[in-house]
Structure formats: structure tokens, C-alpha cells
């Protein structure tokens, strides 16, 4: 049985029934993952004209009801991967599923919203017409289009602009309209490529809140962005792509687990025993690796006993930016593998 057929069976039936059809044991995790995965892809490859190896076997999962961030330097293959999912680019090799159907399944796109990077709307259309046009292409019935267009324009702060031509919109407004367009078909999966590009801080916050609302509604959101701080604030899980490969994938907490530490800053000079009592010493700060608060209690007691003033106790972990910089080896040349 081919992999995508196996996916179908596993998604459609309970593990026991699936076992009789598939012919082998279906692990509970496999059944559960497939049930919950909005996107599940394995070994996606893309070679451009036999020269540029843009994707070299990408595998990742995006679950329902989560915001997933895809990071990577320029030329890492992020947009190529997104475009493969949306059938804009043909993969050299792909297996997996999106919303339970094989990648490239046209009808599945009725339940997917997409905002491409640097999108261009027809200049002769008004905001409302843009939403109606793309809504109709997604086969949204007219009455639903009317209701959704009106509520989305309000939700994204574009009310009052619905009858103005899009060539009079600012970059941020176009971005908001793009998100509204992606939501016109009430998608189960939302794929956004640089959604906050050109949006002011207030707008970014509104978009973050909107994404959180969408997640809470049980939709999967796939974000592709360079703005690491934005992603850090909103993403449940991230994947970092470098040269066509996913080098890290997981929750930010799990990825930064090893880097967690406590920093204890004291007033004045550190005691002589400090280097033995902690993992690291930096100026007036003692560093203890790990995320267990019990590990620093004895140290704090000892400092207090010796009448040393404790200025600050900070739990510290790597930021997404630190993680990104660690994952991306900038000593190498950027871009895809030739």
C-alpha cells in the first residue's frame, strides 16, 4: 500500500479497523499524528533544472489548532516549500498529506487560505471586489461572500475602505487585505508568508491577536517570517530551515531547553567560593545551568547567610534569535545548494 493510501485509511478508520486494511500494526502515535496533522510531509525535494537543490528532503508536521513558524535565512527554501504545499510549484519528490489529502489535491485548497509574500492585487479592483473575486475562486457561495467580506474588512480594520481601489491602499492595508482574502473561504489551514511585512506596530499586534484567535478556533496557522521576535511571541512550534533541510523542529521551550539557566546578580564582589558553587561566573553574576529552581535555593541561602545583597535572580533561556543564529551556520555561504 502506498504511503498516501495508508494515510487515507488511517485518517478514516480507527486503529483496529485500519490495521485490518493496512495489513500491519498502526502505531497509536501514527494514527494520532495523522488525525491531528493539518500538514504532514516527508522527504520533500525540489531540484530546479537539475542544478539548484532547493529542498533536500524536508519533513515536518503542523497540527490542527497550532501556530507553526517556519524560519530560515534567505534562499533556505521556505517559500519553495510553501509554494509546493499550495501547488504553485511542482515538487521533484513529495509524500505526505495536507488536511488528510495528498499534497497537490486540488479540492483540499478549498479549505486552505494563503497569503503569498509580495502579493499583488489587481489595481482596478476595490477591497471588497478583491475579497469577492478570490472568494468566488475558492467556490464560496455569494451570500457567504457578502457576509464574510463585510465582517473581515471590519475585523482587519479596513471598514470605510471597502469601496476604494486597492491602488490607493498603503502597504500595511494591502497586507491586511491579503489576510482577509486568505480568510474568505473560512480555512482550516492558513498559510501566511510574511504577514506583518510593512505593517505598523499596532497592526502587528492586531494581526498577532487575530492569529491567536484563529488558533483558538482550532485552525492551523503556518507562518513563514523573518521577524523572529514576532514568531517567538505567537508560535507554538517552529522549524528552522537551512539550505533546504529542516535542522530544528519543535516548541520553542523544547528547543531552548539546554540553554536554560539562572543568573544571580549580587552587589559588590562575588564571594571566593562562587566559581565552585555555580556553573559559570561573569563579573558580578553567577550562572547556574538548568531550569530547576530547587537547584539555586541552597546557593541563595548561602549568599543571604553571608550578608551578600542579591540584586536579581533571572531565569534565562535562549531567544529565538539565539536559536536561529545557532542553527544557521553563517560561516557558510547563504542560499540553496548548487
Amino acid at each position, binding site marked *: 500500500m502506498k504511503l498516501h493510501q495508508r494515510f487515507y485509511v488511517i485518517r478514516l478508520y480507527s486503529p483496529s479497523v485500519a490495521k485490518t486494511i493496512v495489513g500491519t500494526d498502526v502505531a497509536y502515535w501514527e494514527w494520532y499524528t495523522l488525525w491531528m496533522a493539518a500538514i504532514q510531509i516527508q522527504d520533500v525535494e525540489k531540484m530546479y533544472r537539475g542544478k539548484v537543490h532547493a529542498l533536500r528532503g524536508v519533513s515536518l508536521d503542523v497540527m490542527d489548532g497550532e501556530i507553526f513558524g517556519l524560519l530560515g535565512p534567505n534562499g533556505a527554501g521556505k517559500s519553495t516549500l510553501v*509554494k509546493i504545499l499550495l501547488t*504553485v510549484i*511542482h515538487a521533484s519528490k513529495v509524500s505526505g498529506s495536507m488536511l488528510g489529502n495528498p499534497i497537490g489535491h*486540488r479540492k483540499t485548497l478549498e479549505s486552505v487560505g494563503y497569503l*503569498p509574500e509580495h502579493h499583488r492585487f*489587481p489595481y482596478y479592483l476595490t477591497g471588497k471586489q478583491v475579497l*469577492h473575486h478570490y472568494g468566488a*475562486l475558492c*467556490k464560496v457561495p455569494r451570500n457567504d461572500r457578502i457576509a464574510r467580506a463585510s465582517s473581515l474588512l471590519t475585523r482587519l480594520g479596513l471598514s470605510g475602505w471597502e469601496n476604494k481601489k486597492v491602488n490607493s491602499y498603503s502597504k500595511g492595508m494591502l497586507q491586511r487585505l491579503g489576510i482577509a482574502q486568505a480568510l474568505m473561504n473560512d480555512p482550516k489551514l492558513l498559510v501566511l508568508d510574511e504577514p506583518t511585512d510593512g505593517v505598523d506596530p499596532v497592526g502587528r499586534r492586531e494581526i498577532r491577536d487575530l492569529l491567536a484567535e484563529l488558533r483558538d478556533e482550532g485552525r492551523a496557522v503556518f507562518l513563514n517570517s523573518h521577524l523572529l521576535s514576532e514568531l517567538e511571541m505567537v508560535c507554538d512550534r517552529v522549524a528552522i530551515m537551512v539550505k533546504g533541510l529542516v535542522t530544528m523542529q519543535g516548541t520553542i521551550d523544547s528547543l531552548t531547553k539546554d540553554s536554560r539557566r539562572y543568573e544571580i546578580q549580587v552587589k559588590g564582589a562575588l564571594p571566593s567560593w562562587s566559581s565552585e558553587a555555580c556553573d559559570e561566573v561573569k563579573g558580578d553574576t553567577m550562572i547556574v545551568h538548568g531550569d530547576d529552581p530547587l537547584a539555586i535555593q541552597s546557593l541563595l541561602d548561602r549568599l543571604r547567610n553571608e550578608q551578600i545583597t542579591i540584586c536579581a535572580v533571572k531565569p534565562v533561556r535562549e531567544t529565538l534569535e539565539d536559536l536561529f543564529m545557532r542553527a544557521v551556520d553563517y560561516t557558510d555561504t547563504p542560499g540553496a545548494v548548487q
Partner: protein
Amino acid sequence: MQFKALLLDAYRQLSAAKLFWVTFGISILVVVAYGSVGFNEQGISVLFGLWEIESEQLNAGSPWSRGLYIGIFSSFLVNIWLAWIATVLALISTCSIFPEFVHSGSIELTISKPIGRLKLFFSKYLVSLLFVVLQVTVFCVGVFICVGLRVDEWNPMIFSAIPIVATFFSYLFAVCVLVGIVTRSGITALLITGVFWMALWTVQTSEAVLNRIVIEQQVAIERFDEGVKKAKEELVKITETSAEDFRIPKLEKRIETFSNNSKESEEFLEKITSWHTPTTWVLAICPKNAQTIGLLQRWLNDPDGFDITAIMAGDMRSIEGGEDEVPYPHPDPDGPARAARERETMRRMVDEYDSNSLWYVVGTSLLFEGVILGLASLYFCRKDF
């Protein structure tokens, strides 16, 4: 629903273009100018009676006024305005539709929707023909009313100009689409389509010129052979009466000259046919623009035999009546028989082109268009945007 959305989008795109309204305005002006021509007892009135042309043949009571009025539409308005000027304007207006459609940032939005690429491509292609269909429809409605009011004939065949002109335009637009999709440049698409159109015109004109020469030679050979036959019959008659008649050497000389002329014409015909045959093959696989537009004249033929293009070519038979008297072949190629030979050549050419079936004219042209669109759609479907 998706096709309707694309159709609506195409209309909005066109109506946002100034050139669409300019072309539309000129179309209306042309129809008004056409409607300003009328007939009264004295002759023809132009510009709603500002200018009168007295004519005994063409007046309100004349049977040819209908032929002239519809002839102006089918021979001039369609051939010059719709098939040339309006087509150039339409190409300028529509050449950027596909390059803009496949522009980065725009194509991703459309192609990521639940619509197959092939369906999307052909839907977009069909709705892009809307420019021409709208323009020609308005034009035909105007002409239909003018013809109805001026010559009291409500002829629905006038509306056949809509599919004819749209088909004619689609031959060129297919090339424009292929180039536009590959190069993503409207200007390049327009230029290459222009070059293609000129190449088509060259092929068609070459074929027409060579065909005319071929038919001219065939007519000449027939006439010379006929002359030889007549001279021989005359010679036999005279010889039976008197073996020493003074006309005998003259007739023998004539037979010899005619035979030589016929032989020369045959040799020339053989040579020219070797040029003409490959040209007809090339034309057979090319879109037949002129012949497609010519279908309208064929379908709007005057039942009274009035043929404005023949009149413009100097053939007044449709007005004066009667068939050409076939003059006795004359050895001098520029002699009195020349004009009759040319008329006969023209008649045979028109008959030959008119005898081309609809399948040959439109079918082979659409086949060519299909190949071009097949290539364009293949490129579109396989392309990574």
C-alpha cells in the same frame, strides 16, 4: 462560479483601461457615420443630408441600394475598421492581460485556489476575448439598426460579424498569449504578434498574387487553345472553298502564334506552379485571416448580385448587367482581350476562394490556434511560479 468570477474580473480590467473606452467611442462614431448615409429619390445622401450625391443607379428606388449599404458594412467597415484598426487597438489593450496574470505576486494568489491550471488558463483565455466580443457586439447592434432604418432590412446575419471577428482576433491573440506567458512582457508579446501578423499577411498576399498569376495563365492557355481551335475550323472551311484564299497564310500565322503563346504560357505556368504549390501548403497550416473575414461578405451576398468589391475592381457587370462577351483571342498580350481575361481571372479567383469550405477556412485556422494554445497551456501547467 469560478468562470463567472474570471469573466467579471476581465470586464473590470477592460473597463478600467482608457483604450477600451477610446475604441468604444470610435466604434460608435463609425456607426453614426455609417447611419448618416441614406438614399433619396435623387441619389445618396451623406452626413444626414449635408452632402448629396446624385445617382441614377443608386437611389431610394434602386434595387442596388441595399447591396451598396450592406456592402459598405461587409467590405469596408468590417475589413478596415474591425479587421485592422479595432484589432490593433484590441491587441494593444489585451496584450498585457496574460503577462500581468502570471506576474509574480499575482499568479500565486490565483493558482493556489481550487481551480485546475488548465481550466484556469482556458477560462482566462476565453474571457480575454471579451474585449473584442463587446466591441463588435455594440458595433453590430448599431449597424443592424442603421440597415433596418435605411434600407428596411432587419438582417440578423449582420451579427455573424461577432463570431467571425472574434475568431479572427483569436488567431492573433493565441500567439500573443504564448509569447506573453513565456516572456511575461506585454510589449514583447505585442511586437511578436505584430511580426506574426505581418508574416501571415505576407504569406496570404504571396499566395494570392501567385494564385492570380496561375489562374491568369490557365485562362490565357484556354483562350489561346480556343483561338487555335477556331482558327483551325476557319482554315478548314476556307481551304474547302479555295486552296489559294488570301486569308489562309494569315490564319496559319495566327495558329502558329497562338500555339507558341499557349506553349510559353504552359511553361510559365509550370514554373509559377512550383512556387505556388508550396505557398498553398504553408497557407493551409496558417490561420487564414483574410478568408475568415471574407466569410462575412460571402454570407451577406446581395441577392440582386450587387457586388461593391467587384465594382471597386472595375467590374460593372453587377450594375450594367450582362455577361462579358469573350472577344476573339488576340496575339498581342496587351490587346483588347486582356481586360476580359483579367475579369475572368478575378471571377475564377473569387469563385475559388468562395469554394473554400468553412472547415478549410476556420477549421484549419482554429487547428493552428489550438496548437499554439496547447503549447501555451502546457507551459502554463508545468511552470513553477
